């Protein structure tokens, strides 16, 4: 099967349907249902306390959860935090763990006689108030590690991002972590952050596909000048450009899902940044004033995409990462780098 068709297998479609059914239940039962079904631990091996399944399964889950505006770190848990905890060898809790990369000036890590103590401030932590613990990426004497901090040991300052998803500023002082470990040799904090970047790209790609379909529908139904908008050439060309950017980002996501190296995740986030802004603006342009209304779903999708573009590293930063890694080779040649 072609990597671009990663979401097309019957198993993956069935998984998406199961999760969508849970999400469509009474609001009060959703989270319980997801946990019962093991959704927050998809992609984490059963040995490490997860639900099993692979990265593609975790991706289809993340996309489905995002489409339903779930306000809980279920995807962050399965796709990022659980993955790192398993790599480091910290047992994955059966409660929700979110993940924090955006530290303030510094998270201070101190070694005590038999434990660790952490103090610091974290920004834009996704769904911290809905989590039981926060996986914090830290640096101790130049060694990258991860600390699992109980949310109850922190002070939360709740806000939300542009797209309306809960984000917190988290402060903590002299806290003993529930777990602490160093990343495996050769692995860096950017390598972990790349996984969050990929998660955001999956969410962006999913939302863009919805925007594409919604915009095509609108252009077909809305009549102006005595004909549907879609009969106006400039509008039809805009529809094509939205579809193109959607395909491009989906392809970049597919590449990273097939081989989730930091390099490929960086490619995905770089690609998303170039196309998603244009596509959302074009979609609004086709919708005219309608897109701006809070009663119409386009605005919420657009602003969430813009937030996701900012999170997990911006496109420009990941592009610089790619370029820098390319130029750091002893005798870099562009083509062998691309086809490595």
């Amino acid at each position, binding site marked *: 099967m072609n*990597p671009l068709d990663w979401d097309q297998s019957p198993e993956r479609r069935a998984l998406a349907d199961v999760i969508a059914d849970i999400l469509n239940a009474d609001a009060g039962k959703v989270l319980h249902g997801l946990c019962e079904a093991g959704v927050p631990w998809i992609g984490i091996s059963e040995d490490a306390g997860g639900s099993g399944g692979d990265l593609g399964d975790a991706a289809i889950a993340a996309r489905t959860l995002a489409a339903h505006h779930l306000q809980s770190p279920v995807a962050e848990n399965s796709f990022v935090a659980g993955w790192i905890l398993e790599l480091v060898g910290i047992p994955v809790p059966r409660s929700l763990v979110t993940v924090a990369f955006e530290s303030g000036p510094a998270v201070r890590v101190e070694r005590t006689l038999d434990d660790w103590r952490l103090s610091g401030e974290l920004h834009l932590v996704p769904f911290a108030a809905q989590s039981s613990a926060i996986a914090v990426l830290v640096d101790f004497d130049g060694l990258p590690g991860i600390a699992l901090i109980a949310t109850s040991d922190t002070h939360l300052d709740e806000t939300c991002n542009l797209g309306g998803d809960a984000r917190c500023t988290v402060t903590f002082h002299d806290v003993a972590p529930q777990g602490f470990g160093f990343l495996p040799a050769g692995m860096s904090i950017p390598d972990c952050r790349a996984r969050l970047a990929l998660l955001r790209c999956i969410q962006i790609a999913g939302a863009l596909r919805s925007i594409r379909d919604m915009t095509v529908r609108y252009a077909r139904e809305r009549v102006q000048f005595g004909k549907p908008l879609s009969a106006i050439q400039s509008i039809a060309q805009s529809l*094509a450009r939205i579809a193109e950017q959607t395909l491009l980002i989906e392809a*970049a996501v597919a*590449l990273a899902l097939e081989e989730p190296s930091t390099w490929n995740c960086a*490619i995905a986030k770089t690609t998303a940044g170039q196309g998603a802004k244009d596509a959302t603006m074009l979609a609004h342009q086709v919708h005219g004033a309608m897109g701006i209304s809070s009663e119409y779903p386009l605005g919420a999708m657009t602003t969430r995409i813009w937030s996701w573009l900012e999170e997990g590293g911006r496109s420009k930063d990941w*592009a610089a990462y*790619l*370029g820098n890694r*390319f130029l750091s080779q002893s005798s870099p040649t562009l083509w062998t780098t691309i086809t490595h």
Partner: protein
Amino acid sequence: MPDAQGALRNRVREFLGRELAAGGFAPRCDSWLIGFDPAFSARLGAAGLIGLMLPTEYGGQGLTIRDRLVVSEELLAAGAPVAAHWFAERQFAPALLRLGTAEQRAEWIPRITRGELFMAVGLSESDAGSDLAAVRTKATPVQGGWSVSGTKLWSSGAHHAHVIVVLARTSGERHEGLTQLIVRLPDPSVVIRPILAMNGEHHFNEVVFTDTFVPHADVLGEPGRGWKQAMEELATERAGPERYLSTFPLLHQVAQGLLPGCESQAHIGELIAAISTFRVINMRVVEHIEANRTDAIDIAMLKDMGTVFEQRTIDVALDMINDHHRSQPVPKSALSLLRDAQYQAPGFTVRGGTNEVLRGIVSKGLLL
């Protein structure tokens, strides 16, 4: 992407390495259009690197279109002069396999795989550019075949070609009643005049047919089905790495010698991301063609995005050259690659269907 064709890729690289070491070619941008070198094509054919996906009975290697994709992208990235045989291998051979008679295949395909047969495309006319159904070149039935009269424009390499495949009206109107005919060149009734490009180079031609006789045996496919056949051919023509790698030799050259942390590093990252992603789409398109499913919409999207990207890369290259100036002189070869890319750039988004036409195909597909 895991590279299932790694061994083949290495074979092409070894061939290109030997060629470069022996001064066999100088890399050029857009080499599939402006890099005409029959001797190079013959050497490539002798190395077994043309027509890999063609059946062994005709001198091919019975491999897949995916294998051809690997060879194509390696050649284009290196700026190798492949223009002589490019059109014949890319679209004439597949068209013959789809539509040709046993005799036609046996006559043409072995010469294509040897890199010895050059084919020109006879589609556009003065009043039929994007509106291809407006072609006025006529073929009228005569004893034993057809008589063709009319004028084709923009036929790349027709002045070197052994055949030109002409789309002509045999009956009907618009999309009905068009027929594809194989005209052998040279022919005293066919006059080929150069249309010089803006840099003065001769690649394009005006081809005038006056009562040119084409025997029944040289009709391609079915009379009257020419429109559908030409559209299929265009889809395969559009579905290649030549729609995003035309400026690659320039990018390769100017990216060398830059230092980590330089201003261009994010630009280079963007180039890497874009090309890597186009390759994913290209691979799926090719896999689907192999499974007898032509994704005309995906192909149109890839070509639209890829060619806009190609044009944008020239500014990126200029930025990188600027970056170079602070540390070291820019090699002369880079400047000549830049010149080529700049002259060729306006054509990127026009040839093989303008981007507006492509977006029209995409939006029609979306609105179905």
